[in-house]
């Protein structure tokens, strides 16, 4: 729901635009199950300006800072928080909890009446009038 809200808000700068894709960054520790998310996304976007958009989920692995190795290391899973190179346990998390909207891909309406029909154009007129009050 907050995804739809955020995307809808950001569309204010692009009147009449349609959303083709919503891209998320989701860390391995973010407790997000993609299948449920896809299912809910379809329902949550219904009737909103985001309806019909694709949801792309970019999964990010956990990255820890390993002090003995002196560098950031990537984990293959979330079952053991150890440096895969030296085997030492590490809890200095540098990546893995992300849960954010990275970007959206939109089709912008033509500025000069390219596609005058449809709800997008109507909304544009409405907001212009309101602004003029």
């Amino acid at each position: 729901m907050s995804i739809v809200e955020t995307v809808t808000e950001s569309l204010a700068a692009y009147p009449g635009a349609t959303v083709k894709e919503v891209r998320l960054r989701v860390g391995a520790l973010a407790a997000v199950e993609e299948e449920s998310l896809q299912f809910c996304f379809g329902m949550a976007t219904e009737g909103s300006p985001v309806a019909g958009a694709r949801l792309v989920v970019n999964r990010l692995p956990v990255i820890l800072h390993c002090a003995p190795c002196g560098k950031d290391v990537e984990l293959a899973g979330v079952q053991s928080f150890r440096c895969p190179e030296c085997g030492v346990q590490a809890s200095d998390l540098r990546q893995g909890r992300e849960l954010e909207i990275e970007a959206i891909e939109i089709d912008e309406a033509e500025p000069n009446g390219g596609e005058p029909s449809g709800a997008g154009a109507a909304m544009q007129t409405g907001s212009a009038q309101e602004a003029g009050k």
Partner: protein
Amino acid sequence: MTTRIVELRRGILKKNDELAAELRLRYAAAGALVLNLVSSPGTGKTAFLERTLRELLARGSRAAALVGDLETDNDARRLAASGAPVRQINTHGICHLDADMIGKHLDNWEAVDLAQLDYLFIENVGNLVCPASYDLGEKIRVALLSVTEGEDKPLKYPTLFNSADAAVITKMDIAAPCGFDREAAVRNINEIRPGIRIFETSSKTGAGMDEWLTYLAEARLRHA
């Protein structure tokens, strides 16, 4: 028609994170140590918290609790038997507490002035998934696990255990009949959250409570 990529880079839980940051400042200004207790339903959070509150009050500390459940105020009534001020938060179907709920219940809580508290405990809704993602501004997140649940729970719910600052194993008084493998449990917690403090307790017999109360007192001196 032109296609355009608009970078947003906005956290999906940003609103909660912002409210939690405000709460964190509020707790710090009041000098209260705030703990968020998280576990599955049935782990014994309420029994553990009741005993904790009772013992803190007996030692002259000032403590209060907010307790989250989908419905009923049964837990608030159980906890109130300790003598501490307790307030129930009913989420009506929501599986976790969020920062907004905490803020609102603190705002109009007549029995409690945060500035007069040493400790505020927040007992979350019984759930090992969603509470992990909702920061309540707490200083210490406590993950609880009972001896009846299986030693591999930390491996099954790494997100929650990895975000915890302390772990409490409950119901140690029935560990033997349950065939609880203590070493495996401790090893699994450590695998997910290396170096975390682990308390082995029984709310019934009081085992492990002294160590836990000492930890609380030290944490309060350090943070509040």
